[in-house]
């Protein structure tokens, strides 16, 4: 127990050295303090084993964060960490939640950890990978977003807890706030076609997730009377899914395409409490595309979400090269 407590103290010290007196350092100290108190109450070896697992997780996360800070300081991340922070800032600002999400580095899959509100990313994500950040930030928003009137309530959290579908809520949040770029990124870069129908231990199957996102986009078109969302689903996402897996997202005889599943209920909550965060292509995609092509700065109103979608449009046209990636990361870092 003493070794665990000392290890926690060293962990807090490590983060303090790289992060100073920032919210992440404070969160870590608070978390370490909780764990130390819990260790003090341990009376059995089984309980100690349980607490040790939590301590190990906390240490791993602190180190992930430290590594990200250092890679950035030493200029070894190609500007990706600053871009990720720019996108996180955009998402938190539009959601009206505190911008306390921090970025960690890991070679493993992207993930979110509540203890420090840490999102793990690979060390060199491209602009085409970054939409996944919106899904991970979605987990943060689920817990932080307050009810539009009853400020003590957490509507998304309540929905996620009640339905047990937090992953789908986070998917819908990502599709709602950054539009088609997120499902496109999933289909083009992440989904293993041989396991598209296999649920994971913590996540639903990719087929169910993409169906929910497509249903959300269709519902958004129906609700706002603009074809931009459904059109993106019909023209880009559904064909890509079919190409990837060799079968349509809704095979014949399966549920009807208009069946929205949980998407409608999620959209209702997103609309009510998160309306200003909704992605709207508006007149900004062309301006974002010009900026990505190096033809001057983005015009007023262009957001990080427009840049991500413009980058994906360019990629699907075959124009997505390293120069565009570099410019996109720089613009995201600059707070576009």
């Amino acid at each position: 127990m003493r070794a665990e407590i000392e290890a926690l103290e060293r962990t807090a010290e490590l983060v303090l050295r790289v992060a100073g007196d920032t919210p992440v350092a404070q969160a870590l100290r608070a978390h370490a303090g909780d764990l130390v108190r819990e260790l003090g109450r341990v009376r059995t070896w089984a309980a100690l084993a349980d607490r040790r697992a939590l301590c190990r997780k906390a240490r791993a996360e602190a180190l992930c964060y430290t590594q990200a800070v250092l890679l950035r300081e030493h200029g070894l991340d190609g500007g990706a960490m600053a871009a990720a922070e720019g996108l996180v800032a955009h998402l938190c600002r539009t959601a009206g939640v505190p911008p306390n999400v921090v970025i960690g580095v890991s070679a493993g899959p992207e993930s979110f950890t509540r203890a420090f509100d840490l999102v793990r990313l690979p060390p060199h994500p491209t602009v085409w990978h970054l939409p996944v950040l919106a899904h991970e930030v979605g987990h943060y928003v689920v817990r932080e977003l307050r009810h539009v009137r009853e400020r003590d309530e957490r509507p998304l959290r309540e929905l996620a807890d009640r339905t047990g579908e937090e992953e789908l809520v986070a998917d819908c949040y990502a599709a709602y706030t950054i539009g088609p770029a997120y499902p496109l990124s999933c289909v083009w870069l992440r989904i293993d076609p041989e396991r598209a129908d296999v649920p994971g231990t913590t996540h639903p199957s990719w087929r169910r997730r993409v169906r929910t996102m497509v249903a959300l986009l269709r519902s958004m078109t129906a609700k706002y009377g603009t074809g931009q969302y459904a059109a993106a689903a019909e023209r880009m996402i559904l064909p890509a899914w079919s190409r990837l897996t060799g079968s349509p997202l809704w095979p014949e005889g399966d549920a009807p395409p208009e069946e929205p599943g949980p998407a409608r209920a999620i959209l209702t909550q997103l609309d009510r409490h998160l309306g200003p965060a909704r992605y709207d292509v508006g007149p900004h995609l062309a301006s974002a595309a010009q900026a990505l092509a190096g033809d001057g700065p983005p015009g007023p109103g262009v957001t990080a979400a427009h840049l991500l979608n413009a980058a994906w449009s360019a990629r699907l046209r075959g124009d997505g090269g390293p120069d565009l990636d570099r410019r996109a990361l720089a613009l995201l870092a600059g707070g576009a």
Partner: protein
Amino acid sequence: MDGRAILRTRLDTLLSDLAKVSRAVDLATAKREHIHAALDSLAHAEAGVRVLEVTAAVVGIELGAGEDGQLGAVTEHRLLTSLNDLGADVRKVQEELAAIKRLLEPVRDRMVVIGNQKALEAALQDDCFDLTEEARELRELADDDAADLPGLWRDYLGFVDTKARPLFDAYVDFISGLAVRDSDLDGSVCAISDHLLTRLLGQHEALSLPAREAALSMHAIIKLGFPEWGVWSVPLAAREAGANLLRNAKIRTLHRFLNGPRGRVPGAEQLAEDALGAFMLGPAYARAMFTFRLRPGWPAQPGMPPDTQRAEIILGILRRQGDPDGQDAFSDEVARLSAFWESAATDLGADPAARLDPGFVAGVHEALRMGRRRDFSAANWGETVLWARHLLDRPGGGQPPELVEADRVVILLNAGWLARLESPEREPAVADRLMELIRQNGTSRASGARPLPPPASPHLPPGRSR
């Protein structure tokens, strides 16, 4: 229409990631080369200024001699002023150079010696190159409309899982480990561990880097698991050094034994790694393992033999290291360690009874002995005791003996543990002093060929007794 375009996109992304890995490794190297180049330039500048200093002194003397001097009587006012000011100007430049040196020296101290790092970077780059070639082949096949698409997808996914991901893992650990080490967040413990690795494996054979979990990676990186970044955990690196020796089959006698009939016991290789740690490092290895890693009665760690067996082989090897007649203090120390482990096992309800085949322990020890690997011997224990007294400033301890350079770090680590056990309340002070003493090692790898400056405190200079 098929998924070929998506597969091509993923392969392009993979190739781009591999290129980024390669570039980042180059960047890390270049950064170190700049620091070392700057320090070399600084050394040249200092030498040049010393020449100027001598010249200024000579000029001063000659000017002082007036018409009798070799310069004769200098009457031109500006020239005279310049010559008179020369000494002061030189001193000013010297002070500025010294200030720059003070800024750069700590950085150099933390920087891994370039030759060693380059070898590891080359290994990473080689892996990167091989994988890039393989990914390019897959990419070319993806362009071929006649190629079997489901087969290509399987090849791609298998390639990512079994080859690309492990490389990215190694890369993240390597590059971020260097960054943590350069920033001194490890408290210079990697530099201390490098001293030990030099003793156990030879110069430039391995590199210590701070990481999440302790492990041997890329054949030669000894990862020190966080939060075990302290001098007391340094002996744990001996296990990873043992893994390096085993995997590279550097001890032929041990390799033969493990592949022979008596060496085929479950977990033999992992047990042999512990045996090597104890053989090369002595009781300090057991102390560190019992304190930080092994837990009697707990389920075995994944892929490892039970902790009870690991403790058994560590103690078994140490018992055989002492004099056969048991007439030295080393056997007492092993008896204390043994009693400590048995008591912990009893307290925790574990059965401390021997479970390993005694023939296996004896066979491993004999193979190590025949392998002529430098071991921790009973003779080293006498020096350990004297150095432990020195660490504690015990009166009547006398001057600690001069240490053979090759044994220095091992004896100091053992002395440190002994001192800590004798005076647990002085542990922080002992740790500081121990770090300082080990860093005085003349074979410093943390600073490359440049030995560290002597400390201001009255500790022993490298390899000499007072």
